[in-house]
């Protein structure tokens, strides 16, 4: 598998999904998974798979002795692995910027020279694909598609790509041509395309002109909350309610609709507070908009949250809202529901396809959204119903089930490929 992010060092939903999916698959006994990451931090959970750090795979032959390698590569990798990779260097990359053991550095994030990193990643993938033995390649999101194609070319194994998002979602239709071409190329070469929702599947078929027969919907799932998070107490909100938006404050997530809905609600009632957690390029504009609407005293921006903070914030909320304009899947409402917080999601979100025990509105329908916020805050029976039934519903959505379905697709793809 090729991926870009992995918990605990994540920047968005991609890492969480990659983790869950891999773990769900690993529950099958006859499945060995190798996960390639640009830059592992060393604290990833490796109990169910093997991680290869692309920043520790040599692409230039360097004569280094065993002890030195041992001191240079991280604990999860042996010097034998290093030498193994070194034996499979396939071209002269000495013009590249490599370090003392012939490896390239990766940031593992989304830097400005992202395209260069993507390219480097795919160069390294060629070495990995020559050495490792595998039956199928699975590439997560467009950053790793070139690597997936490369691996397919080298090994002759079928390629599955997993579309977590497309550029059409991120840009509200104004795609970046470079990104689009990378995505399109990946899809053209793929033998099987898994999309996180029917919505994304439609985009892939219509905008990327893919054959519907190889495009499948594979909804995401969630992992049960660790006990530590489950034990976070739910503060008493009988006097004042809190409505939370949690995510990147970008165009895709529709934050302005949340502010507008909040201002409608606050025109009528005062005992509700609004919280927009996260950061992003539209944050300043949102702060300005809240001030313009005269609701800044009830509208809060606590900034980016990670780890336990997220769950504390969710537990401290009475309503979770995700007004995304276009959301391939959107795992966060599921997490909110796990915490027992009723969710309002836009109909344009992929997770709306599998969730019933939440309120769905159109992202532009701020009146409906405001109405729903008001209703959950005002009618205890609605809150209670959504809370209890929401937990039940979300507990039934497991990665294990997703793993079984992915396995089915793998088997199908491999047998189609060999014929």
């Amino acid at each position, binding site marked *: 598998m090729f991926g870009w992010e992995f918990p605990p060092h994540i920047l968005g939903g991609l890492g969480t999904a990659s983790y869950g999916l891999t773990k769900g698959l690993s529950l099958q006994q006859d499945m060995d998974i190798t996960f390639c990451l640009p830059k592992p931090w060393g604290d990833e959970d490796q109990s169910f798979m093997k991680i290869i750090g692309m920043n520790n795979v040599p692409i230039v032959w360097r004569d280094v002795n065993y002890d030195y390698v041992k001191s240079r590569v991280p604990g999860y990798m042996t010097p034998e692995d290093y030498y193994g990779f070194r034996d499979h260097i396939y071209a002269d990359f000495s013009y590249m910027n490599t370090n003392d053991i012939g490896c390239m550095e990766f940031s593992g994030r989304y830097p400005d020279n992202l395209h260069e990193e993507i390219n480097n990643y795919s160069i390294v993938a060629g070495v990995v694909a020559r050495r490792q033995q595998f039956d199928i390649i699975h590439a997560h999101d467009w950053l790793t598609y070139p690597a997936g194609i490369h691996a397919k070319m080298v090994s002759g194994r079928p390629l599955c790509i997993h579309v977590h998002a497309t550029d059409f979602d991120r840009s509200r239709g104004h795609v970046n041509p470079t990104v689009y071409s990378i995505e399109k190329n990946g899809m053209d070469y793929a033998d099987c395309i898994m999309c996180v929702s029917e919505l994304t599947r439609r985009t892939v078929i219509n905008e990327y002109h893919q054959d519907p027969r190889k495009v499948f919907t594979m909804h995401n799932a969630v992992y049960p909350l660790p006990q530590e998070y489950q034990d976070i107490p739910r503060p008493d909100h009988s006097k004042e309610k809190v409505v939370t938006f949690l995510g990147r404050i970008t165009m895709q997530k529709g934050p302005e609709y949340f502010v507008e809905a909040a201002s*409608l609600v606050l025109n009528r009632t005062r005992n509700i507070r609004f919280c927009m957690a996260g950061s992003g390029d539209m944050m300043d504009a949102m702060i300005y908009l809240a001030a313009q609407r005269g609701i800044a005293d009830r509208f809060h921006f606590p900034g980016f949250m990670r780890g336990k903070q997220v769950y504390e914030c969710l537990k401290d909320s009475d309503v979770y809202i995700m007004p995304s304009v276009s959301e391939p899947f959107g795992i966060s409402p599921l997490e909110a529901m796990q915490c027992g917080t009723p969710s309002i999601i836009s109909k344009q979100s992929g997770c709306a396809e599998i969730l019933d025990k939440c309120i769905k509105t159109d992202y532009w329908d701020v009146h409906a959204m*405001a*109405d729903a916020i008001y209703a959950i805050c005002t009618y205890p029976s609605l809150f209670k119903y959504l809370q209890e039934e929401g937990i039940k519903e979300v507990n039934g959505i497991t990665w294990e089930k997703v793993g079984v379905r992915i396995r089915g697709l793998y088997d199908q793809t491999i047998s189609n490929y060999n014929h």
Partner: protein
Amino acid sequence: MKTICLYFEIHQIIHLRRYRFFDIGRDHYYYDDYENERSITDIAERSYVPALNALIQMTKENPGYFKVAVSLSGVGLEQLEIHAPQVLDLLGQLNDTGSLEFLCEPYSHGLAALGNEESFRDECNRLKNKIKEMYGQTPKVFRNSSLIYSDDIGALVADMGFEGVLTEGAKQVLGWKSPHFVYENPIDPRLKVLLRDYKLSDDISLRFSNTEWSEYPLFADKYMDWIASLPQEEEVINIFMELSALGIFQPLSSNILEFLKALPKVAKDRGISFSTPSEVIKNYPSVGAIDVPYNVSWVDEERDTSCWLGNDMQREAFNKLYSVADRVRICTDRRIKQDWDYLQASNNFRFMTTKHNSVGMNRGIYDSPFDAFTNYMNILGDFISRVNNLYPTDMDNEELNSLLTTIQNQDEEIAAKDREIEKLQKQLEKYNPSKSPELKADKEKKATVKKEPEKKAPVKKAAKKEPEKKAPAKKAAKKAEPEEKPKAKKAKK
């Protein structure tokens, strides 16, 4: 001899409009006029008119033999009055043949039987009076909204003077028993219970045009053979359904009306008669009491009240609604009373159901149960605040009621006094025949008539009713005043 008791229900709700919480306290109009007009006209055209025409034709072809029962909800009746009066005319025609029996049901088609006894009685009486007024029939048999019934509701119905009640022949109630007998209520045996044969009823209303059904296509003779082949002693076959089953659930293109029209002929051939519910109660003795400890209804596979009160949201809405029932009953504001009827309709609760087996359920303008709940609660919020604004909320209902009774008593007293004044006036005429023509002229101008003796009456009655005199006197004076003003204007002209 076997008999078929055929009964149709006519009910359509007043659709609620999209009502946001911003509207609370600002806009007190809750209805979607366009949708109301559209849906009722559509249903009348596609179902009610052709179906009633068929029934009229059947009764005319088989005078005295084919009989049918119908009930109307008050809310549905109001809708028909406004948008499709031809349906009411057809009902009148059917009534004129003498083969139609009207049944009584709660005015609003609501769940008052489960929520508030007094409201329930009130509603039933209102519909009874309305039917009497429109068609000259006093219903003797009762059917609750969606055939909701339990022993307690039965006792209540019996207490209101009804002879019989219709309900569902639900499996959980009957067990090994057959619905083809007349039963009685265990608390009040005067009330006879007729049980719907859901198999035979649903064959027509649910399955008739279903090509995947093993018995498709269903013909009248086959259907009647089923009835004829029932054991000899099972004599009463109750087939109850909504009238809109003919034409809406089963489209006219399925020839459902031809099927219906063929029924009297094939029944006659097999020696089976038709009866109205009252006739069944009169002619067939009860075989014993039937215990219905829990509420049953004719809805869903469970045949209970879970589709209206199955989840917390529905129960909250229901409790909130009936929390103001007493207040609404004692108030005199006509708009509030009207809204109360429309808001009670059980369909509003059904939109909020989260049960999975409600296949193909039409939620109207709502796209989810939560949406339905939110909208309804917003309207209810506004409605309740209007009710509470009528009378101070810190005053409890009993206190309020006693005050209102006092006022009502005083009104009655005034009315009695007015009558007495008139009587005295007449007597006065006799004594002074010369003045009589003048007085007669005066009578048309009531105000003057009233005002004149006002001065005299208290003198005569002063000793009798000293303490309460003040209020009536003031009121009378108030009444008189505004009426005098226009007169003054007229005089000027």
